[in-house]
C-alpha cells in the first residue's frame, strides 16, 4: 500500500468523522472530504528497475571527465557554488560547500585500499565519489522524520519538504556524501540565480536553507525515461547505470567482466556504487 493511499484512507476517516455538515468556511480544515485520489501512476516513459546501481570505470576517469560530470550534475540539480562567491573567504566557502558528485583522491575514496608502490595509474587518477544509495543506509536509519528514505528500487532519497535540518544523517554517513544548506542556495539579490552565479534550471527545484541534500541518482530524470545526468554527460561509458537484478543490464555485464571494488564495504551499508579497475 503506497504512502499516499494510506494517507488517503486516514484522512477519509477523519472526514467521515467530521461529517458532511461542515460549513464551507471550515471545509479546508478537513482534508480530503471527497473520494480521491482516482489514481496516480508513473509516466509511461519512466525507467524502472528492481535495484538501481552505478558502475564507474576508474581507468577511464581523468580531470576533464570528472569536471564535465560534476558540472552536468550540479547544473541539472541547481547546486550552488560557494567557492565562486567573491568576498567569501576560502575557509567559509569550503565550509558551506554543497557537493553531489565530485572528484576525490584515490587515498581519500579508498583509505583502506592504499598499498605502497601502487601504480600511479590508479593512485593518481581522480575518483568520482557520490551517494552510494546503500542497501542498508545508515542515514535512513537515523533520520527522525523519515525525510530521508529508501525507495523500493533502492534509491535513497531526500524529502526536502520534511527535513528539519538536524544533520544526524550527515554524522551517520560513512562516505561524507551529504551536504547541508548552511545558507540560502539562491542569490539573495536575484532569486533566479544560485549562489556562485549559475542560473537556476527551472527543471528542478532549488533547496531552502536549513535542509540536507545529496545525490538522488537522478530520480527526476529516471521518472521521465532519461539516464542520470552524470551518465548522460559521459561520452565513453565512464559511468554505467543499470538494474542489478537484470543479468543482461550493462551494469551487470561490466561487473561480470572486470574486477570491482566498493567504498568501505566493511561498514555493512551495502554501497551500490561500484568501481571497476
Amino acid at each position, binding site marked *: 500500500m503506497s504512502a499516499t493511499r494510506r494517507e488517503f484512507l486516514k484522512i477519509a476517516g477523519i472526514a467521515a468523522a467530521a461529517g458532511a455538515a461542515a460549513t464551507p468556511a471550515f471545509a479546508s480544515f478537513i482534508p480530503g472530504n471527497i473520494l480521491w485520489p482516482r489514481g496516480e501512476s508513473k509516466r509511461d516513459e519512466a525507467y524502472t528497475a528492481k535495484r538501481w546501481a552505478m558502475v564507474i570505470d576508474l581507468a577511464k576517469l581523468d580531470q576533464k571527465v570528472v569536471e564535465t560530470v560534476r558540472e552536468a550534475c550540479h547544473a541539472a540539480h541547481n547546486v550552488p557554488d560557494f567557492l565562486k562567491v567573491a568576498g567569501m573567504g576560502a575557509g*567559509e566557502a*569550503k*565550509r*558551506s*560547500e*554543497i*557537493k553531489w558528485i565530485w572528484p*576525490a583522491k584515490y*587515498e*581519500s*575514496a579508498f*583509505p583502506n585500499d592504499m598499498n605502497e608502490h601502487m601504480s600511479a595509474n590508479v593512485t593518481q587518477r581522480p575518483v568520482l*565519489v557520490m551517494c552510494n544509495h546503500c542497501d542498508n543506509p*545508515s542515514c*535512513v*536509519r*537515523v*533520520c*527522525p*522524520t*523519515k*525525510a530521508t528514505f529508501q525507495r523500493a528500487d533502492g534509491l535513497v532519497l531526500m524529502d526536502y519538504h*520534511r*527535513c*528539519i*535540518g*538536524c*544533520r*544526524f544523517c*550527515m*554524522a*551517520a*554517513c*560513512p*562516505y*561524507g556524501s551529504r*551536504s*547541508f*544548506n*548552511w*545558507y*540560502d542556495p539562491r542569490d539573495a539579490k536575484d532569486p533566479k540565480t544560485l549562489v556562485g552565479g549559475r542560473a537556476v534550471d527551472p527543471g528542478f527545484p532549488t533547496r*531552502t*536553507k*536549513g*535542509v*540536507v541534500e545529496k545525490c538522488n541518482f537522478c530520480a527526476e530524470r529516471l521518472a521521465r525515461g532519461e539516464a542520470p545526468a552524470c551518465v548522460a554527460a559521459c561520452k565513453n561509458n565512464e559511468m554505467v547505470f543499470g538494474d542489478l537484478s537484470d543479468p543482461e543490464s550493462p551494469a551487470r555485464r561490466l561487473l561480470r567482466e572486470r574486477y570491482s571494488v566498493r567504498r*568501505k564495504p566493511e*561498514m*555493512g*551499508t551495502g554501497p551500490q556504487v561500484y568501481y571497476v579497475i
Partner: protein
Amino acid sequence: MLDKAIKGSKLYWWWLFILFGAIGTGFLAYLYQFTHGLGETGMSRDISWGIYISQLTYLVGVAASGVMLVLPYYLHNHKAFGKITILGEFMAVGAVFMCLMFVLVDLGQPMRMFNLVLHPSPNSVLFWDAVVLNVYMGLNLVIGWMVLQCEKKGDVVPKWVKVLIYISIPWAFSIHTVTAFLYAGLPGRHFWLTAIMAARFLASAFAAGPAILLLIMLALRKASSFHVAWDTLKGLAKIITYAMIANVFFFLLEVFTAFYSGIPGHQETFYYLFTGLSHHGHWYGQLVPAMWVSLILMFTTIVLLVVPQWRNSEKVLPVTLVILVAATWIDKGLGLVIGGFIPNPLNEITEYAVTLPEILITIGVYGMGALVVTLLYKIAIGVREELENKPRIIGAAEHAAHGHAH
C-alpha cells in the same frame, strides 16, 4: 508556591536581571542566525555538529546526575540527602530544558520541529532521545513540585509520586544511555563507535553533575538561608570521587584499545586531540592545548579528591570541583563531539572555530536554564524558610524523613 519566585532580595533581582540580559542577547543572536542560516556558526560540511550539540551532550549528563541524590535517599535510605533531592530534581528540569533548547537552536528548519511527532521514526535514536528527555523533564518537575507541596502542607507524599520517583531513577540512566547511542551507533565514526560510550557518559555525568550541584549548594550556603550540612556535602564528594575515577578509567580503556590494536581509524581522533594531525603539509591541532589541560586537570582532581583531608576541606573542595567541571566540560563538551568528526570520512581535515553568534546563543540558552533553575530553587528555598519560621504540626517521623537538621 509560585509567589515565592517574585519576592526576593536585591541580589536575587540583580541575578535575574543579568540572566534576562544574557537571554535577550542570545535571542537577538538567534534571530540573526535564523535569518542568515546556520552558516553563521562555525559548523561545516565536515563538522556538522558543533558547540550546540556538545552542550546537549554535556547537559544531559548534568540532568541525569540528579539521580545521584535521589538514589541514595530512596533506595538506600541515606537520610542526609533527603533535604537536597529537590535540588537535584529541579536542576534536572533546568538541564533538560537547556538540552531541548540546544537541539532547537541547532535545527536548520526549526519551524518543522513537529515533524518529529507527525512522522515518528522509532528507528531513529534522536526520536528516542526526544522522548526520554521530555519525559524525564516532566517526571522531575512533577516529583519536585509535589514533594515540595507536601512538605509545605505537612502531608505525606502520595503513593503515585513515590511510584514516579522510582521510575525516575532508571529513567535518569536511560537519558544518558540514549544520548550516548546518538554517537555510539554510527558506522564510520571510529571515535564514537565504542560500546563503552554510554558507561563513559554516565561516569563523567555522575562526576560533573553532582560537582555542579555541590558548588551551587556551597553558593546557597553563602547567599541564602539554605544551609546544607557539611557532612551531607562530604557524602556527595565521595560519589564524585568514585565517578571521576571511573570516568578516567574508561577513557584509558579507550586509549588501550585504540593503541594496542594499532588500528589507524581508532587512533586518528586521539592523535588529532592530543598531538595534532599533519595532512598535506599542514598541521591541524586546535584542540591539543585544551585536551592536555583537560587530561592534567582530571588527574589533578582525582588526587585532590582521593586524599581525605583535601576532599573534606571546605577550602580545597570548591576549587577541586571547579577544576573538575572545567576538565569534564573540555573533554565532553568540546573534544568528544568535535573530535569525532576529525578526520572526515574521506580522511581529510576541516577544523571547527566557534563564532560570536554561536557563543552568544549558547550563553543565552545557559541563561534560560539558569533562570529555570533559579526560579525553581527560589520557590523551594522560600517554602523551606517559611516552614522553619512557623511552628510546625507535622509528626516527628515525617520531620526526620525530610532531613531537617535546622
